[in-house]
């Protein structure tokens, strides 16, 4: 996997995690492993200005900044009043800084949701 990537990445841009996983997959904490399973799933992130972003989970870093792929932005068309009609816009690849993320929901089956809750404990 790493060889294929290095055609587009000069080697100094190789990130730490791939080297880490080369060492041993079992070094990962269960939380990290669980989060890794959520890659490529649809994620709905709420931003601090009231917008929502729906996209596939692409990447996350230690600070909690998240990259979504094929993201769609949902926004209200009225400042107040529940419910207000929403409109959407396609954005593509986006980065949501941890500082403006207010909520994060992942699409999963009911069973998974239950197991997710046990991790949260």
């Amino acid at each position, binding site marked *: 996997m790493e060889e294929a990537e290095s055609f587009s990445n000069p080697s100094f841009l190789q990130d730490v995690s791939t080297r880490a996983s080369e060492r041993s997959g079992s070094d990962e904490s269960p939380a990290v492993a669980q989060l890794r399973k959520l890659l490529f799933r649809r994620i709905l992130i709420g931003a601090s200005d009231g917008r929502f972003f729906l996209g596939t989970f692409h*990447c996350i870093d230690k600070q909690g900044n998240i990259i979504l792929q094929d993201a769609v932005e949902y926004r209200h068309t009225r400042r107040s009043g529940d419910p207000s009609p929403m409109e959407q816009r396609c954005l593509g690849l986006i980065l949501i800084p941890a500082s403006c993320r207010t909520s994060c929901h992942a699409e999963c089956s009911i069973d998974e949701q239950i197991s997710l809750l046990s991790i949260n404990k």
Partner: protein
Amino acid sequence: MASRLVQGQEGETGGRLADPPISYPIIPAGEQTVWADVSPLIASACNDLQDGQLIHGENFSLFAAMSALEIMDPKMDAGVEKCGYYSIEEAIENNVAPVPLSLNPTLDVQRVIDVIDHLFSCEATWYKGHTLAQTVFSCIYLLRIERTSSHALLHSYCRIMRATCNAVISVVSDSRTHEEEDLFTMAYGLPLKGEGDEKCLSILNSVEETISRQLRACKAQSLKKKQLEDIEPLQSNPDLEEGYCRALLCRLRFRKHYYLVLTSMKKPQGKGLELARKHVASCLSELTHITKSQEFLRALSYGFHQDDIQSSTTASGCRPIGFDASLNNRFSAPTPPRATHILSWKEAVSYFQKLLSDLDFVCSLNTDLVLDDVFCFIVQFQKPQPDLVARAHLQILLIQDGKLYGKEFFHDIISRELGLPELTKGKEHQKNEFIVQLGQLIINLLKILCANTAWQRRKLGKILQDWSVLSLQLEIAFKREIGETLNVMVDENMSTKVSKHLLRWTEERTYWIASRFLMLGFELELYSPYDYCMVYWFMYLVFMKLLEKIQLQTAANNENSQRKGKKKKDHGKDQIRDASFSSSTLLIHCYICLSEGLAMILAALRNESKAFHMVGPFNGEEERFIQHFDLLLKAHVPEHATYYLFKESTGHARISSIIKDNCFREAQKIITSLRGSYAGNSDKLIELQQLEQVAERNRVALSVIDQIGARDPSLTVSFEFTHHPHFAIAVIKRS
């Protein structure tokens, strides 16, 4: 069954999901799936990650990830919710754009005039290079035109505005005139297409008719005459009726005539140009009335909040209602729009006056001009630096369907102008690959000449290679055919003649392009004073070559007509052509003298007093030479123009020797003789005047420097472009 975002559901272990955000989104999850809060999971996973560690999949590339739009970054995220309305509908619900604009008829009319004026300022701002969404379509009335249908005046004005925008966009898109940023034609998500917009003129005419009758009625009333018809007044204050009617009429008429200018100019083959000029004149006259109306409107609004007369976007000074630029932010994909400063109303009026004068110049194009004169026409057109709209119109007029003015194919024009009428009888010339290639190069050149100065210069430099290659190919073909025809009849082979004429014409045009490339560098301020010497030296070389090619062409034409023993009436035409050749030859001769004179003065100053001699850690003189003339050197235009030759030519320059050569005096003599040939041509006379000033002042400066002595430390010489944009004048200061 799609499940919604769940709220407060208890899980088996007794834990609760985190409460969803306050605003309740209605974004469904998939079938058999739910939205599960993963914030706690993320928090603990991130805690466990090492510094610099990422969680990503196999398709992840750090390089690609750098192109991700960062949310909440004002430069990348167009949708950041600021204060203000979240949508056009919300703005409308909050009465931002009421219809009618006021229940008080007088106030309604006043506000409509403000909307019209602000739209006018927005339109000028758009033409200058901003997006439609941030300017004209910041008007909510335009964004939802259907709402205005109960208000005849506003509705008709919006319709014709929309039709005008469409007309302008289609000309600019068709011409594919490049600008640094193609913001002009961006219209994503804007309601530009409207049904029945072709009828917008008749709708406007009926509104104009009504207001004319209202004006007549109020004038009749003021003169205590019996009114011919019973007509409802425009608004409720009889004292203001006349003023408001006039203010509206000139605005409506301007809009009508401007639309007609655009539609007339669009007629193929330049058939509507004369009519367009009449409409331009009407536009300018209505603009004068519009300007006069400002006093009336401004006085009426006294007491309301009024912007300063220089910065206001309306004649009255009041802010218009019904505009909100931020509503359109999301339509400017993908990055947020730059802050747009709407021109003031006064600036907009000046902008349109200039635009109309540029369009008028385009309409003055005589479609019988020979190709060489077409090039001169475009150069003249470009002198006042016309904007995109005018330039796009010229380009569309010149090249339609690959023909000049949509009338003649370029290969026919080339054959005709090279004085080879026999060739048009047969179709063989079309296949002559050189003529076809040349035709393509000419089309490309005409389009480039219509672009803005910076783009034009860049492209002119690039095409030098193509022109130079064609010249080379023609030369090779010509020499080959010369060899072949030696064995054939006495009469010169037709294709040899074609090649010779093509070669000369192509070479002449190539040097013309080179000279334009060099001169535009002055207009764009690309040269530092340290570089002027080498630039003028190069211009001198290029002009010399250009002159040589023109003289060869003239000689060939004379030879041609002598051999054919032309009749008297053809002789007259030839005389005119020769006269124009000789005056263009003289002009180039003048440029040669001035370039030589300036190059030598600068060289002498550098040699004697070390002025204009750049020392420093950056590029040396030879490197700068190569950088400036890289494209010319690569294309061998001209041949052997090396840095070594430059140093040789200028290394021994001294003020005392230059005085003897007296280039500037020679230039003055030429200018005097040219005055006769240019009589009646005001544009050419203006340039002669400028050249005269350049020659005279430099001549004087040279003698002053000679008297004082170039080495005198109190002497400072600078070069300013106070009279002619391409030829500097030496300015002497003594400290």
